[in-house]
């Protein structure tokens, strides 16, 4: 069968042509194309990885910010609380101090009043004594004629004393 009989001439030509094509394409086409494809694939992969990395970083930064904010908020709350405590403490202390002072003042006043009262009383006592002496002296001096006038005189003096 001619159809399935290999022809040596055609085999030689095919070998020559195919090998020439193979070597030309290998040197000037396949190698640059494959390396270009590889480089581009690496580039794409790198860019993707970089993008992912950036996203990750962004997330990290965001988380950091959030954390800082949270921290700041907590600190602010703490400061506020402290200030409030301090304020209430001061008020408390002031209140306590004031009440102490007032009570002391009241006490002092009371004591002063007591002293004054005692002084006044002793004065009154002294006055009463001197008045009594005066009355007695007057009574004795006028040499009372009758009892009736003596009595009226005494009553009159007593009235005067009451007024005082």
């Amino acid at each position: 069968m001619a159809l399935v009989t290999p022809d040596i001439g055609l085999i030689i030509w095919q070998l020559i042509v195919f090998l020439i094509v193979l070597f030309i394409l290998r040197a000037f086409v396949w190698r640059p194309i494959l390396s270009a494809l590889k480089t581009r694939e690496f580039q794409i992969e790198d860019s993707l990885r970089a993008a992912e990395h950036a996203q990750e970083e962004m997330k990290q930064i965001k988380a950091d910010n959030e954390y800082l904010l949270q921290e700041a908020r907590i600190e602010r709350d703490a400061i506020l609380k402290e200030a409030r405590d301090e304020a209430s403490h001061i008020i408390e202390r002031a209140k306590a101090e004031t009440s102490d002072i007032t009570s002391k003042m009241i006490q002092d006043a009371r004591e002063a009043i007591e002293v004054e009262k005692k002084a006044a009383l002793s004065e009154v006592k002294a006055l009463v004594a001197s008045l009594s002496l005066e009355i007695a002296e007057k009574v004795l001096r006028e040499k009372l004629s009758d009892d009736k006038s003596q009595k009226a005189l005494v009553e009159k003096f007593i009235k005067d004393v009451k007024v005082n």
Partner: protein
Amino acid sequence: MLKRSNFLTINKFLAIILLVMPGLVWAGGGSGKDGEDEQFDPSELINHHISDSHVWEITHGIVVHLPVIVYSEEKGLDIFSSANFFGEHEEVKPYNGYVMDHDHITLESGGHVFDISITKNVLFLFIDALILILVFSAVARGYKKNAGKAPKGIQSFFEPIIVFVRDDIARDNIGHKYERFMPFLLTVFFFIWFGNLLGLLPGAANMTGNISVTLTLAVITLIITLFSGRKTYWLHIVDPLGKSMPWAGKLLLYIILWPVEIIGIFTKPFSLMIRLFANITAGHILILSIISLAFIFESLTIGVVGALFATVMNMLELFVAVLQAYVFTLLSALYFGQAVQEHH
């Protein structure tokens, strides 16, 4: 560098040629029938088309006489046009001591000649090679021009195919050592694909459906396989049973197994050779047979139906063209993969 619009135009042009091809063949055959009032012989027409020839008959009446290059011990090297074998009325005649019988050249004395002529298939080999180099240098220029950018034009058409050959054919079947086989796999894939497509053009040679061409490709695959064979590959052939039984028992089995393994080395490329040859030749025979029906029955109706059917077959052949290129490349990659695999 082809621009996108040009590329589309070429696609359209090719599509038109492929669509009208059955018609052209029909017209060619028809005029032949009218001219010479002979009995129409489809098997001769088909055989003439699918075999190699010293003349390139583009269509009936348009003939290119190709150069004959012959060497014989008696007459040495001779180069002349094959037109010398034809007389004024297209009859075959001897020339300068050589005779040509059905495209087979011998000496008039009956001696053997070594025929390395530029036949129709050799011419199409050159055309295929030229197209490959032109197309892919354009593609390669695209990579230089658009370095680091998205592919453009013809580059973007071939890039997915190149990536497919790399990822799905080479890397999947060979493993991490695939890179050194890439030039061969890509070349063989596009060589066969373009050759198959060229063969579908009207008046073209059945180049990739020729046993010599497929034999050469298969032998190259075999040689690469054998030369890249690793310890595991040879061990698998010499000692296929491994440590599964004592050596005395193995020796008995190996009397049968060794021949099988050694034959196995050659049956793989043999199947490559036969598969490509048979698929492409069968496609050509099928289309030509359908068209020949019109002349066998001498009916216009069958002619029209046949032409339509042949068009459908042509579409199928377009698919077969790329499928067979894929299969050849895939199986080659598979054999390379077996050759370079590590012990596991």
